[in-house]
C-alpha cells in the first residue's frame, strides 16, 4: 500500500466517516482514496473550496461528536492554522494529516521536515498544542492514524500526523490489524438539544478571568499529555556516548547509519521521537548518564534541534546535520555522525 492510502484506510478502520479536504501535492492520494472509500462505508467525502473551508468543516463536524479528518501539506496547513487554533480551544477531537513538503513559500514537493515548528510550537494564535505523531513506515501511517483518533477523543484534542511527502508516496506491505473503536461519551456535542439543555461550542471569553481560567484548563490538559504520552523508540542507546535524534522516515536512515557505526565500535545510539509533541525529552534524559554528546538529524535547516537542546539543557553539546529536499543517504548520515564523534572526542 502507498503511505497516503494506508493513512486513509487507517482512518476508516478507526471509524472516521467524514473527510473534508482540499487538493495539494503530495497529500492528494489521501483525499482521492477517501473519495472512493467513504461512500462505501456510509460516510461523506467533501472537497472543500479552500483549506480554510476544509478545516472549518472539520470544526463543525467534530462539534457533532463524529470522527472527522482533514489532510493537507505545508502551505495548506499554514492556511488551516486559524481553524486549528479554534478547534484546539474548543477542545474538539479530530485528526489532521500533514503530508509535508519543503518550504518556505511554495517551496517544493520534495522530502522535508521543515514544518516541525509549525506543528509543535503553535502554528496558529494562542496558547495551545497539538498532539503530533510522526510515523516512520507505511505500517505506522495506518497504525498511527488509528491511534490518532483514539488520542483525539481521549484528550479532546486535535491530533496532527506529521509525515514526509516521501513516506506518503512510498509503497510497503501493511498488516491490517483488527481494531475495535472504543466508545467515548461526548455530552458536549452539538446535535440538537432534545431532552437536555443546549450545548454551546465557543472559543470567545471576553471577561479576563474567564479567559485565564480557560487557558489554565488547556494548560492542565497539556501537562497531562506531557506526563502520559511522550513516546520514542530507542535503538542501541545502551551505553551510547553519542545520541542521534531523528524522526519519521529519516530515522530509518539514521538507524542504518547507527548500526553500521556500532559495528565499527563507535558507541552511538538513536532516539526516534514518535510524539513530536509532547517531545520525548525524558527519553533523552534517560540516556544522559552515558551520553556525552547529542546530535539532531533532520530534513530541515534545524528545527527539532531546539527541543533536543532544551532537553539536554546545556549538559552536553548538541550538534546538527540537515538536508532539505532530499533524504540523505545512510553513508551521508554515517559520515555526519562520525564527524561529530571526532569533533566531540568520542572517536
Amino acid at each position, binding site marked *: 500500500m502507498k503511505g497516503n492510502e494506508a493513512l486513509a484506510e487507517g482512518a476508516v478502520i478507526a471509524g472516521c466517516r467524514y473527510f473534508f479536504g482540499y487538493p495539494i501535492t503530495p497529500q492528494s492520494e489521501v483525499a482521492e482514496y477517501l473519495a472512493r472509500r467513504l461512500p462505501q462505508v456510509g460516510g461523506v467525502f467533501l472537497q472543500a473550496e479552500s483549506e480554510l473551508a476544509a478545516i*472549518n468543516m472539520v470544526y463543525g463536524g467534530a462539534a457533532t461528536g463524529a470522527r472527522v479528518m482533514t489532510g493537507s501539506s505545508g502551505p495548506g496547513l499554514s492556511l488551516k492554522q486559524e481553524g486549528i487554533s479554534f478547534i484546539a480551544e474548543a477542545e474538539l477531537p479530530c485528526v489532521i494529516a500533514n503530508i509535508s513538503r519543503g518550504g518556505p513559500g511554495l517551496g517544493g514537493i520534495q522530502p522535508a521536515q521543515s514544518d516541525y515548528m509549525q506543528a509543535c510550537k503553535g502554528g496558529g494564535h494562542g496558547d495551545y498544542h497539538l498532539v503530533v505523531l510522526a510515523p516512520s513506515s507505511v505500517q505506522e501511517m495506518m497504525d498511527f492514524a488509528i491511534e490518532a483518533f483514539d488520542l483525539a477523543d481521549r484528550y479532546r484534542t486535535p491530533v496532527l500526523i506529521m509525515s514526509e511527502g516521501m513516506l506518503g508516496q512510498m509503497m510497503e506491505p501493511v498488516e491490517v490489524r483488527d481494531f475495535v473503536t472504543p466508545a467515548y461519551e461526548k455530552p458536549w456535542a452539538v446535535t440538537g*438539544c*432534545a431532552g437536555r439543555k443546549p450545548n454551546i461550542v465557543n472559543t*470567545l471569553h471576553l471577561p479576563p478571568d474567564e479567559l485565564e481560567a480557560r487557558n489554565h484548563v488547556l494548560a492542565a490538559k497539556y501537562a497531562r499529555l506531557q506526563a502520559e504520552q511522550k513516546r520514542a523508540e530507542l535503538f542501541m542507546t545502551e551505553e551510547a556516548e553519542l545520541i542521534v535524534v531523528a524522526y519519521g522516515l529519516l530515522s530509518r536512515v539514521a538507524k542504518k547509519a547507527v548500526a553500521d557505526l556500532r559495528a565499527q565500535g563507535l558507541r552511538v545510539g538513536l532516539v526516534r521521537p514518535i510524539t513530536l509533541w509532547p517531545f520525548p525529552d525524558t527519553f533523552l534524559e534517560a540516556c544522559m548518564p552515558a551520553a556525552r554528546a547529542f546530535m539532531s538529524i533532520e530534513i530541515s535547516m534545524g528545527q527539532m534541534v531546539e527541543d533536543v537542546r532544551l532537553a539536554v539543557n546545556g549538559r552536553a553539546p548538541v550538534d546538527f546535520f540537515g538536508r532539505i529536499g532530499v533524504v540523505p543517504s545512510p553513508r551521508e548520515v554515517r559520515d555526519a555522525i562520525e564527524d561529530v564523534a571526532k569533533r566531540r572526542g568520542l572517536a
Partner: protein
Amino acid sequence: MKKVLAMPQSLTGARWHYCPGCGHGIIHRLVAESMDELGIRERTIGICPVGCAVLAYDYFNCDMLEAAHGRAPAVATGIKRILGDRVVFTYQGDGDLASIGMGEIVHAASRGEKITVFFVNNTVYGMTGGQMAPTTLLGQVTTTSPFGRDKDREGYPMKVAELLSTLEGAAYVTRVAINTPANAARAKKAIKRAFEVQMAGTGFSLVEILSTCPTNWGLGPVEAMKWLEEKMIPYYPLGDYKVKEAQ
C-alpha cells in the same frame, strides 16, 4: 386573563448586549418565533459569526456554535453533512459574510448546502466600531471611509442577495427589512420559509435582512429606521431573488 404575547421558547431571555435601537434584537426574536412555530428548537443548531452577533449563543435557546470570522457556512456544512436531519442555520453580518467570508458563502450556496443563512446587512462593521463594510453605501461616512465611500477608491457596495441568486444551488434567496412592523412581519415570513426550504431539502436558503446600527451611523433609533428606508432600500431593493420549487 389570556396571555397573548410571551418570550419565544427559542430565546433564553438573557439581556441583550446590543446597543439601544439595534436591529439584532428584532431579528433574533423573528428567528426564535419562527423556530417555535415550526417546532424545531430541539433539533436546530445555530452558528454565530464574528461581529456584534458573536454572542448570539447567549440568546438562542438551542445548540449553538461560534465560528471564526466568515467561516460559519463551512462550519454549518460540516454539521449538516453529518447530521442531515437537523436544522442548521448561520447568523452573519455583512463584514463576516460579504467580506472575509465571501468564499465560504458563495460555495455553500453553489453546492446547495441545505442550510439557512440569516444575513444581517447594516452597512458597517458594528463590533469593531463602525468601519466600512462591503455593503457600505456610496457616499456613506465610516471610520475607514472618512470622506465617504467613493466608487473609484473603495468600489461599489456588494449586493449579496442578487449575487447569490445566480447560483444553481440556491433555492431561496430573498431580501427583507425590519424598519416597520409591516416589514418585520414580512421578514418573519421569509425567515420561516427559509427554514422550510431547508427542511424540505430543496437547497440553500438565505434571507438578507436590512437592519440598523444607530451607534455607528451616529443616528437615533427612529432616524436610523428612516435612513434605512430612504438610503438602503433604494440600493438594496426588497423582494424574492430566487425561489426554487421543491422537487
